[in-house]
């Protein structure tokens, strides 16, 4: 476990450093260092982005909020416009780790980690976020993340920022089911966004964490829901749909069967939350 550490001052230098073989980019380090410790990766070089001022920003305009790659969870939580624009993202981040982790970890780190259980990631799926890559590409989040721990980020490139388009929603929901309240990785997480029409759902987005190799957006459920009224019957139907579509595995945190049951049960939160749509 011996590696060198470098903290470039600008993006040019960053780019040079990360193209070297064996180099790993670190933003918060909260996951990377654990992985090194567990022997999952053996970097020759760690390149920290933390001192690059051009990556440390949050921009807001009428259409979107752009989050620079070194912005920590804690900074996001303290950024009022984010809470107003994307409460579901706020709620998701709020459950991440602990103050200590949130003070170090970044949303981009969460994306790069590409964990099926990524709480922030789930919110980004719901919000149709785009990842801006250093080569100029902007990629939808669900295309950016490929599988656990893997993204399409080309070698030698880095994530500059996350773009989250603004959109209006009447209801938002995030919940993670874990073994305990704090410092936990979800057994299953769920999030949705609902826009109500006059009598029925105008638009719905729904996503689950920890039930598939990546965050799972259930687009057909979303389509199905359009124009439906939220009531017991509706929930009964979609919970069955959900059960069929999620594809969890057995692991130390929970069995596949349990997870499936959880997912369908969590749909009843829509009724419990008293959403009238």
């Amino acid at each position, binding site marked *: 476990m011996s590696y060198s*550490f470098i903290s470039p001052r600008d993006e040019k230098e960053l780019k040079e450093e990360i193209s070297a073989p064996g180099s790993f980019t670190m933003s918060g380090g909260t996951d990377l260092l654990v992985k090194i410790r567990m022997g999952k990766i053996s970097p020759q070089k760690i390149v920290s982005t933390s001192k690059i001022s051009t990556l440390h920003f949050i921009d807001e305009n009428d259409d979107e909020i752009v989050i620079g790659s070194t912005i920590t969870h*804690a900074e996001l939580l303290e950024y009022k416009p984010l809470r107003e624009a994307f409460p579901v993202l706020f709620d998701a981040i709020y459950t991440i780790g602990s103050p200590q*982790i949130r003070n170090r970890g970044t949303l981009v780190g969460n994306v790069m980690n590409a964990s099926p259980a990524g709480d922030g990631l789930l919110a980004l799926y719901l919000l149709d976020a785009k990842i801006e890559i250093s080569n100029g590409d902007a990629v939808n989040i669900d295309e950016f993340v490929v599988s656990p721990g893997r993204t399409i980020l080309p070698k030698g490139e880095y994530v500059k920022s996350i773009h989250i388009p603004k959109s209006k929603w009447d209801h938002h929901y995030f919940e993670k089911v874990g073994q305990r309240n704090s410092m936990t990785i979800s057994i299953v997480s769920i999030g949705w966004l609902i826009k109500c029409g006059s009598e029925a759902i105008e638009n719905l987005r729904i996503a689950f964490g920890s039930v598939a190799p990546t965050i799972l957006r259930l687009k057909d459920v979303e389509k199905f829901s359009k124009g439906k009224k939220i009531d017991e019957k509706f929930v009964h139907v979609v919970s069955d749909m959900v059960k069929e579509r999620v594809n969890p595995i057995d692991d130390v945190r929970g069995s596949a069967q349990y997870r499936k049951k959880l997912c369908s049960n969590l749909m009843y939160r829509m009724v419990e939350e008293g959403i009238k749509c």
Partner: protein
Amino acid sequence: MLVRFNLNGEEIESEVRDDERALDFLRRIGMKSVKEGCGEGECGACTIIVNGRNVVSCLMLAPELDGTEVWTTEGLSFKNELDPIQKAFVDEGAIQCGFCTPGMVMSAKALLMKNPQPTVEEIKKGMEGNLCRCTGYFKIIEAVKKAADEN
């Protein structure tokens, strides 16, 4: 590599290894209040305050300390005079074995710096990254509350 930073109010300049954790380095230079409990950011015993925020020093590399302002529990008390948080921990019986206490104190300190009058819920949330196996947390919450009340 050489790092320069402010530790407990004093400018420090020291040679560190690239792959040394901040936890190991701080202990090496005598900050024994910084405890290793788990080594993976789970327990918070190694909590320190960096630039006003509490972080776990086990998930931070020593070179990253460069240019920062760091506080450990050693920096909180002068002579035998305790910081109000430390005093509250003692008064409220929030210390049993004491191993988690330095990390607890630093998290409480960071919390109160940001939020001088936290609610009980906010205290719980603020302290959620610090495990304690002895107390059941009640006295710790009370201690932080007391320190906040005396602020």
